[in-house]
């Protein structure tokens, strides 16, 4: 009897695991493809902003360029510096990539379509994004190079500083939606463009997005790489597949931050024309994709526009501007909630 029961448990468990694995693949494969083409779009967009045409040799208008890059990186030799800590040196790229992909487990693509629609989804997002720094720190330390260590040090200070403001910005979203579940946060913004949280929480949205840019170590916050001062920062000693993994992690994080901003502040999969236009008003994955595309474009736009921040300016912005600003706005929101004023009632 127990044997039969445990056998049934085994088959059910295996079946569930198989289905889950397929779902995970269905999320990760598109992300990988988007990462590949994001590198292409980045080079094209920045190229046109600088009056160049960007990659145009491989395939029609350079469309096969990402594949050429990937094959080049994978076929290159993986070099390990002689005095590096071999184990950590080879583990670090994976530690950078895993949180970037694991966070997608709670991201809803449309109503109820998340890998794990958990109640504490927002906490999970915070927990996972706070772990991304380990890959960078360990890469910097294990390389046994002063430039790599300097890059890792800058990155750690920056991430710890901006995580606080990021968390506070999310507190505002939690208060507005009364939920930690990403699905319910989007549903709470239903009712058209003017119900999105970007309007009542505009400073928090701006702070969150800027913190997102800082957390992904993208320009103008890319002091962890800082080519002009510390060569390439934490990944200066990496070549081939290890470098490719860091690249993949950075771009996966960009896509993730774009998705999170879309979900928290501009209504995720909801249409801006909700209840106004018959067909365009329908919610769906395409709206989330469009919003994400816009924020991703902003990432590239920033890189082409802004000079790199100086280190002390980064610290000042994080600690002395963003944290007081978010605290002020949360206080204001508390008053709004207490007196019953605001669009979320």
């Amino acid at each position: 009897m127990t044997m039969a029961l445990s056998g049934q448990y085994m088959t059910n468990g295996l079946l569930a695991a198989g289905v889950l694995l397929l779902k995970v693949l269905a999320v990760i494969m598109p992300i990988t493809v988007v990462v590949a083409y994001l590198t292409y779009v980045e080079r094209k967009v920045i190229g046109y902003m600088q009056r160049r045409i960007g990659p145009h040799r491989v395939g029609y208008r350079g469309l096969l360029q990402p594949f050429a890059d990937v094959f080049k990186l994978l076929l290159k030799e993986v070099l390990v510096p002689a005095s590096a800590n071999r184990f950590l040196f080879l583990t670090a790229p994976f530690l950078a990539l895993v949180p970037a992909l694991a966070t997608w487990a709670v991201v809803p693509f449309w109503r109820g379509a998340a890998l794990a629609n958990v109640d504490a989804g927002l906490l999970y997002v915070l927990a996972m994004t706070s772990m991304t720094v380990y890959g960078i720190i360990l890469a910097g330390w294990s390389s046994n190079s002063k430039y790599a260590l300097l890059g890792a040090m800058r990155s750690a200070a920056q991430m710890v500083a901006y995580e606080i403001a990021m968390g506070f910005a999310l507190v505002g979203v939690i208060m507005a939606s009364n939920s930690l579940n990403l699905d319910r946060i989007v549903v709470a913004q239903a009712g058209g463009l003017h119900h999105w949280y970007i309007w009542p929480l505009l400073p928090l949205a701006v702070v969150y997005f800027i913190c997102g840019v800082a957390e992904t170590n993208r320009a103008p916050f890319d002091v962890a790489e800082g080519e002009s001062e510390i060569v390439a920062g934490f990944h200066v000693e990496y070549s081939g597949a290890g470098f490719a993994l860091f690249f993949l992690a950075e771009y996966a994080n960009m896509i993730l931050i774009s998705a999170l901003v879309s979900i928290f502040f501009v209504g995720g999969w909801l249409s801006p024309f909700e209840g106004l236009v018959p067909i365009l008003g329908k919610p769906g994955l395409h709206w989330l994709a469009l919003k994400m595309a816009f924020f991703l474009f902003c990432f590239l736009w920033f890189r082409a526009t802004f000079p790199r921040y100086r280190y002390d300016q980064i610290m000042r912005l994080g600690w002395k501007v963003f944290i007081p600003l978010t605290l002020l706005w949360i206080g204001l929101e508390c008053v709004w909630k207490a007196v019953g004023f605001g669009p979320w009632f």
Partner: protein
Amino acid sequence: MLPALPFYLASAFLIGASLGVVGSRNPVYAALFLVLAFVSAAVLWLLAGAEFLAMALVVVYVGAVMVLFLFVVMMIDVRLAVLHRSFVRYLPLGVLVAVAMMVQIIAALRGLAQGAGHAFPEGGNTEALGTLIYTRFLYPFEIAGLILLLAIVAAIALTLRRREGTRHQDPGRQVLVRKQDRLRLWRLPPHQASGEQLPASAQREDT
């Protein structure tokens, strides 16, 4: 056995990582083992239904405290042989502390077992925890927060050094600078002879 497999797996990881923390010679490895121990503990709490505690553990300890800790460990130059010797020397004391803690925990659990069983609310306990903290335990919670804030302010006040004569930038003043404060325009007549100094006829043209 099978449904409890995640529990045993996480427990094994927790025990192994804890042994790694005290046993590894390399302090960076010890710090990383501590990270693994925290994550395993978070998994255990998740399995017990305490999702808020689990996530808070990861956010606070793994995401912030251990990052800074790891950094300090990476920066200092630790001689491994000295570390190894002190490990053996402090072993009896460590065992004593471990046994004392074990006895205390067992005693506490005995007391807990005699009381009523605690049922976790369905679908997570974040909301229940929040309600309790902000209603029944409001004062203890606020006082704890105040003490922590005090500790932060005290730590900063103790280590803050004001140095005279630093070329410190004040972004507020930088923004307030106007063109008139920094820029002077001079009208210069065309040069004729070389090697001449600034012509006497150069006039200052204030804008």
